[in-house]
């Protein structure tokens, strides 16, 4: 007998004569306490994210590239990982080209194995889009893809995320249902709610454990 057959057999024998319990999921409990007026969503998201050391900058679809350049300059960072094939990637490229910023735009356009060393040690920051955000918990939602692979939001010490204000949902449940996540998920879905942190030594909170030390969210209020 295989381990599989033994385990399933034991479990089935223990359930003999019993019925599966009904589905008593109560969606009210995970939605109603977490509903916000549309004008309060950004404020809720912002206060929760700032409480865990995230920088949140309201901006617009016109001025965000300049803000990115400014944020990098203030930190003396030059190497920015940014997907040239995305709309926001093209906008940033145009801005950098037009204004002769000291920003060196890098692309994640080859398998990680081909440039692991460089990704781990030579990239100062990354810029990615988001699928949206969750006001209830102060979380960004990322669905990594070929353009913006999984490690883009993890390895560089600074992660800048673009968020369209219209894509901030009240709570995770409403977002899952609105986008029908249960019908199929991509290989990796991430909720990101701040820079990497740990409290493993004496419960003292320290940021920049293994992932980004800084998370910067640009909220495009007109998008």
């Amino acid at each position, binding site marked *: 007998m295989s381990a599989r057959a033994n385990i399933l057999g034991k479990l089935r024998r223990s359930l003999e004569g019993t019925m599966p*319990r009904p589905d008593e*999921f109560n969606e009210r409990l995970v939605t109603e306490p977490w509903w916000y007026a549309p004008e309060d969503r950004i404020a809720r998201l912002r206060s*929760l994210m700032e409480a865990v050391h995230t920088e949140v900058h309201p901006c617009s679809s016109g001025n965000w590239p300049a803000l990115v350049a400014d944020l990098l300059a203030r930190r003396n960072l030059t190497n920015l990982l940014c997907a040239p094939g995305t709309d926001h990637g093209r906008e940033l490229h145009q801005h950098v080209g037009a204004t002769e910023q000291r920003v060196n735009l890098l692309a994640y356009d080859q398998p*990680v194995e081909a440039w*692991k060393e460089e990704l781990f040690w030579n990239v100062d920051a990354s810029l990615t889009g988001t699928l949206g955000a969750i006001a209830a918990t102060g979380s960004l939602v990322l669905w990594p893809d070929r353009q913006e692979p999984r490690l883009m939001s993890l390895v560089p010490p600074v992660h800048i995320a673009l968020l369209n204000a219209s894509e901030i949902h009240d709570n995770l449940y409403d977002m*899952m249902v609105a986008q029908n996540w249960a019908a199929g998920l991509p*290989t*990796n879905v991430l909720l990101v709610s701040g820079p*990497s942190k740990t409290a493993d030594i*004496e419960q003292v909170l320290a940021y920049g454990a293994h992932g980004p030390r800084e998370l910067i969210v640009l909220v495009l209020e007109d998008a």
Partner: protein
Amino acid sequence: MSQRIPATELSANFRGRAGEALADGQLSSNFRTAMDSLMQKRANAFPDADEREGLRELGNRIKARSLSKLPDLLEQLEQKLTENGVKVHWAETVEEANTLVHNIIEARKGRQVVKGKSMVSEEMEMNDYLAERGIECLESDMGEYIVQLDGEKPSHIIMPAIHKNARQVSKLFHDKLGEPETEDVNQLIQVGRRTLRQKFMEADVGVSGVNFAIAETGTLLLVENEGNGRMSTTVPPVHIAVTGIEKVVANLRDVVPLVSLLTRSALGQPITTYVNLISGPRQPDELDGPEEVHLVLLDNGRSGAFADAQMRQTLNCIRCGACMNHCPVYTRVGGHTYGEVYPGPIGKIITPHMAGLHNVPDHPSASSLCGACGDVCPVKIPIPELLQRLRQENVKNPEEPQLVKGGGAKFSRKERWIWRSWQMLNTRPGLYRLFLWAATRMRALAPSNVGPWTENHSAPVPARRSLHDLAAAHLDSSGETSS
């Protein structure tokens, strides 16, 4: 004064270890501070008691529903994961699980493994197993890394190094890594970050646990704050997730309340920094993520607990650690005293199914039954009730069939005789009165030594007159009669 308590230097039994821990002022102070803070954080995370209780009830029902169709859900999970390109393996014992993991690593000729936090891999003692076979298995959670570096075991399931303070960590990093001493926690964490980044990059295989496995979509959900879990499951070309068979839930929506209960109960956070949902390996059009993803489903006694409808509730556990944070015993004796992978109240009720009750005979009674653990459990496991049940199983006649593995280890004919006599005495009025008459008249003969009781208390001596007598006399003198 002991600065550290490596597992190898501990006393062989719970009582001995408890005595040592209680005598260690540093240890007690480290735990007291940490547990007070964790209790406060949890309280702050649930400001609305109605909301909290509603969510706990929902959490309980979701887990009960999942367990009521566990074999079907496991098959569905396997089918969905397989469709998604994840290879599913089954193991009845930790030996089988270790062999499976080792074979996967060997097939890739792997020599370096990085591990995200996984209590199931602690059950398996995977690090030791792989080390004996020439494979380095490095813990990457900061707390686990510290504990591993010092040759210890975790003392808390969420905060593995909670028994150490910054000075102790500084000394450890100085001794083992040659780092300059500092008590600045930020600098200590940066040492860990630097060291482990290199390891993430080089690793051949990443190992992780699973917080929830979702049958409907074939998804493994992991929560964490550090990013080491994402590193371990994304950077190396192979990802092996190991988990207990009880972690499966039916629907994606089920994880919404469960994750909220988990992070708020464990750390008082509305959510962890990362919630990582993994539904498959790297696809042909993707540029990163592991080429292979494996899931090892481990039984290790869980199906034994499942066979008993009452003990089955232990499988509700979502490993938040709130029960230990609120336990007056755990706070005083610390995690290592329990001598097993899972300490505290939850450890006391799940360890017997894994290790056998005969190996942890003192665990069920190392509790004041104050009820705090049951009150805070996010999935409403009636821990005090299960501890009482285990106390009964502990003293069952070994000749009877045992419902819990290793039951009957504390059986004593003398104790059974005493309790039976006590029962007889209290259920027969005539006999009881005779006993009262004799006990009050012969009180001078009461033993001065009644075992462990008299180690810390004076021996009980019967009163000159029984309450019964006194009451009767009182009623006579006040002229009333009892009917």
